[in-house]
């Protein structure tokens, strides 16, 4: 009962901030709302008993991604707000389409499918298992991801740096 109440509050918070993210005219504000959305999601993770992921979420999304985004926004501050409408020509259609899609999805996940839910508990040593799995059974994806990160890092530097020509 309590949990459900908490869940409802958290998810409402999350969704509302998400809505602000996509609607707010001021990009900086919506970036801040993005941060709060991330927080909400992290809270959801906690409710899902995935503390590790929650913290990782905070660390990566807020600590790195959101910060980066805000940084970029500041760098290009001049043309962030005002000047032109934040929406493009197809905004209305997009809205309608999105709503329809959302309704469809809700319908599907809520009523159509009944998922094979088990009420097994999360084992206590999940995190150590996770670590073992990351360097054991899932080592290839793990390594690939790290290589991807490195490539992205170098690529970002190469793309963004001032070309002297």
């Amino acid at each position, binding site marked *: 009962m309590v949990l459900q109440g908490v869940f409802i509050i958290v998810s409402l918070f999350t969704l509302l901030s998400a809505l602000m993210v996509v609607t707010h005219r001021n990009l900086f504000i919506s970036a801040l709302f993005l941060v709060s959305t991330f927080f909400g999601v992290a809270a959801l993770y906690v409710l899902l008993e995935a503390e590790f992921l929650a913290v990782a979420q905070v660390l990566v999304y807020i600590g790195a991604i959101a910060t980066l985004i805000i940084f970029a926004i500041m760098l290009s501050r001049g043309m962030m707000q005002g000047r032109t409408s934040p929406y*493009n020509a*197809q905004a209305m*259609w*997009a809205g309608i*389409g*999105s709503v*329809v*899609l959302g309704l*469809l999805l809700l319908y*599907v996940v809520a009523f159509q499918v009944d998922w094979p839910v088990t009420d097994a508990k999360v084992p206590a040593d999940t995190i150590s298992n996770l670590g073992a799995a990351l360097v054991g059974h899932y080592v290839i994806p793990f390594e690939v991801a790290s290589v991807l990160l490195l490539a992205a890092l170098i690529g970002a530097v190469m793309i963004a740096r001032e070309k002297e020509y």
Partner: protein
Amino acid sequence: MNATLFLIPALPFTAFVLIVLFTNQNKKVSAGLTIGTTAVSWLLGWYFAFRAFFSPHEIASEPIRLTIPWFAGGYSVFYTGFQVDVLTAAMLFMVPFLCLLIFIYSVGYMEGDPRFSRFFAYLALFATGMLGFVMADNMLLAFIFWELMGVCSYLLIGFWSYRKPGETHIDHAQVIRARNASLKAFITTRVGDTVMLAGMVLLYAMTGSLRWSEVLSHETLHMLSEKIANVPFFGLTPWATVLAILIFWGAIGKSAQFPLHVWLPDAMEGPTPVSALIHAATMVSAGVYLIIRTFPLFHAVMEGHNGALLFVAFIGTFTAFFAATIGVAQFDIKRVLAYSTISQLGYMFAALGIGAYIAAAFHLIMHAFFKALLFLSSGSVIHAMHHGHHVAHAHGHGDHEEEDHFNPNDMRNMGGLLKKMPVTGWTFIAGGLSLSGFPLITSGFWSKDEILSDAWHGGHMVVFWTLALAAFLTAFYTWRQIFMTFFGEPRTEAAKHAHESPKSMTVPLTILAIFAIAAGWSGIPESFPGLGALVHGWFQSFMGAQAHAIGLEVEHLPFDARPLLISVVLVLSGMTAAWLLYGRRSNVTEHGYVDPLEPALGGLWVAMHNKWWVDEFYQGTVIAFAKWFSHFAYAFDDKWVIDPIVDGVGRFGRWLAVSVRRFIDEQIIDRLVNATAWVSNVVGEWARQIQTGQAQNYLLAILLTVGVLLVLGLGW
């Protein structure tokens, strides 16, 4: 340890590969590789050889084997591998040792040759071939190595044919001669090999196997001797005889026996170490080895006269005498030795022909030693002559005309070299003594005497007397050579300025000289008065084990003075004759050196000097026919058949193409193409409007698609 058998041939091969691929630039390393690997093979080879020496009967009955499955030949898996039995052991005692000595010798001989490393690569490859051949435990593998030897001999005979004229002492004519000689050797031996291949195929067809152990087993041989084949011109013959003769042809080619002997003298164009190793000691004796190896097959047919053995005996005896006659009348120091080689090989075949199995093997080994020695020291002589010639030239003696056609091999240019180069001289004399079969001390005497007494006891009088005569001639031309080369006065500036060769050449000579004299003592027959008691005919009993293993009965001959005395007398008389004709007086007249026999014998001399015109005969008949036939075939094939067909096809193609273009291309295809272009143009004009270049539009489209799919998926 048995697993290391394969190393014996494999090591020189690795040397070959390494040299050809990597170290071709570095002469020292290349020579080092070849000699080092061969040395290891030599040690291994002697390890196995001595194992055999100490326990001949075990080895003979149960050879050391290393066998692997090779490929599945139809209904039976084809095994291959190496084996060491008594015979192989005897060869393993001789072959790698000679190889090693001669390789070391070559370092000195080939010094300063631009293709030095390549020469050693070939030598290594040849060592592979010979060792593999003697150790192969089946005929196919043996044949492969046999052909490998053929290739090496081809490459090495023609070694100087890649030489640009004037690059060193090789002049243009010699280059041409080398090229022709190599081709001649290759093709002539190929004739024999082809027949042999046929024999091998038939053998496999008959017995379903090529392993010595299986082919030469008693039941197989019995089967072969029972089965009768109807051979054209010869009537009914046991298969054993047929196969034996066919295989023997291979030996004829390889060992330069009478009809196919022509290549060996020309092969002397190759560097002298090559002549010593390949064309005296090892490869040419491979033929003899092959016959010894397959001797049971020859021996299979017991009852009646045995065609195979008769054939072998005839060829051998004839060649022995025939070659000796030619040898008498040659001036080229190496050619004389070449003909003596041919005749000695003839001895061996004759011995085999009369069933003197052990004697043949014995003579094979002994001959290898002293003939290698002779060749090497003759090489040393040539070396010295040619250097002396250069010295003389440098000193201003000797004019340019002489320079151009000066032949360091020609014995007429030599004389009195014993003082100039004592080591070479004495070793050569040792070899000469052994070759001419000087009584009691030399190995040549023991081996040859063995053959002769076998012939005497077997009652093959024709063979005996022919061989005895050949022995006389042998002694004669050997000493003629020695006297012309080493005694008397130097007849040219070159001879005057000749000097001893480097250590790397003289040391092997000395070692070989010891073997050439002493090796024979291992074969003193037990029945020989006095000396026999010392040795008890060790070699006889040793090879006897092998003979016993393959089911030959070897009776120990009682001592008989008659053949011995005859041969001794003939040999001594030959030597004296040589001394009278060449040693006592120098035959220099106003027009150069004149051989005393030339006026004496007249036409016979001319015949012998021109080798009985065998080459010319072949030129006139076989080769001429081959040329004509190939021309005819070329004309038939290309001019009369192929060309018209090709042209017709071409014309038809052109006609077809034209009509296709006119009716199909222009009428149908082109219009289709244009229509396609038009359609795509129109469609594109319309469709380009879809591509707004705005990712978000596309995403919207995706959204709609997903929605629609969802709806469909929900089954509305």
